[in-house]
């Protein structure tokens, strides 16, 4: 096992969801994603008025890979990490900030939202999310068992022949 698994469930998931919802309302961004370092979406929220989001799988993968590359650059330059990344285009901005060592908070927004406001509110949310993710590290391991294995094998047979 290279990376610890992140098992987000129950009360912790609901609290993460709530914090993302609050962040969305406070900042006015379009999309807000919590992504793990492997590039999987743990939770996402979008504004009601936002257009259909891009493929979130791909966004999460590229954000995590970009963060990993940025961290490698930081190490080469003698820094422990660069904790945030901002990519600004003509019409939109992608803002990514680390949530501890296990996740990345990603916000996507248009030109009407000031970056400063996003940064201020994101800092507060990150503190809350980091505390929740830390609790999860002590959660009991997940048991899937034999039935899962049999079910998965049947699916593989269906899909791959």
């Amino acid at each position, binding site marked *: 096992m290279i990376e*610890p698994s992140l098992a987000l469930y129950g009360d912790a998931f609901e609290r993460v969801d709530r914090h993302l919802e609050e962040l969305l309302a406070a900042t006015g961004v379009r999309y807000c994603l919590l992504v793990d370092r492997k590039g999987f979406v743990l939770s996402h929220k979008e504004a009601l008025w936002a257009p259909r989001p891009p493929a979130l799988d791909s966004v999460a993968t590229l954000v995590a890979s970009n963060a990993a590359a940025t961290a490698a650059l930081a190490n080469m330059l003698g820094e422990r990490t660069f904790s945030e990344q901002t990519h600004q285009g003509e019409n939109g901005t992608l803002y990514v900030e680390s949530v501890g060592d296990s996740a990345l908070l990603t916000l996507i927004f248009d030109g009407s939202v000031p970056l400063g406001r996003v940064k201020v509110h994101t800092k507060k949310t990150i503190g809350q999310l980091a505390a929740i993710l830390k609790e999860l590290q002590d959660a009991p391991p997940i048991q899937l068992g034999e039935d899962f294995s049999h079910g998965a094998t049947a699916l593989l047979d269906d899909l791959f022949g």
Partner: protein
Amino acid sequence: MSTINFAAREINCKIVYYGPGMSGKTTNLKHVFSKVPAQLRGEMVSLATEDERTLFFDFLPLDLGSVQGFKTRFHLYTVPGQVFYNASRKLILRGVDGIVFVADSAPNRLRANAESMRNLRENLAEHGIDVRDVPIVLQVNKRDIEGALPTDMIRAVIDPKKELTLFEATAHNGGGVFETLKSVSRLVLDRLAQNK
């Protein structure tokens, strides 16, 4: 280990195609993309150079369906094979759940196969993991080329103890692609069920 999201009832696993440059890793993914029904796969992302060499990675999300109420999804990645892209390869291995090692059957690529396997061991070790702790399947690709080396000879330099399940393949026409993917998927899901 796989990322499990109980609230969304999702299990996500990361499978990486590893091997020397031009051995057919991207071709494997392209074949999967072309044959899997559209509703089961996401967009294929390729970060490649102008001459179509993989620069950072290729990525293809694949939905298996639901197992015990969990939506089970594989994220398939390739790494760049060229020797000088090692930093990228190391990053892509982060959090890997299963590996397909794609070896090249061309006579002049025997050493490249061996070096790529050694590089895989070293990169995994840098992540603090022994190569025996990750499910790995060996695919010997390009079996249809003229002068293809005997499979045993290729295996002797990559897997001398014959510990890995081996599949012969011709990825450009799809031969062996799904057999390989099915095998590594099964190993990954078995380990998940055993809670390893």
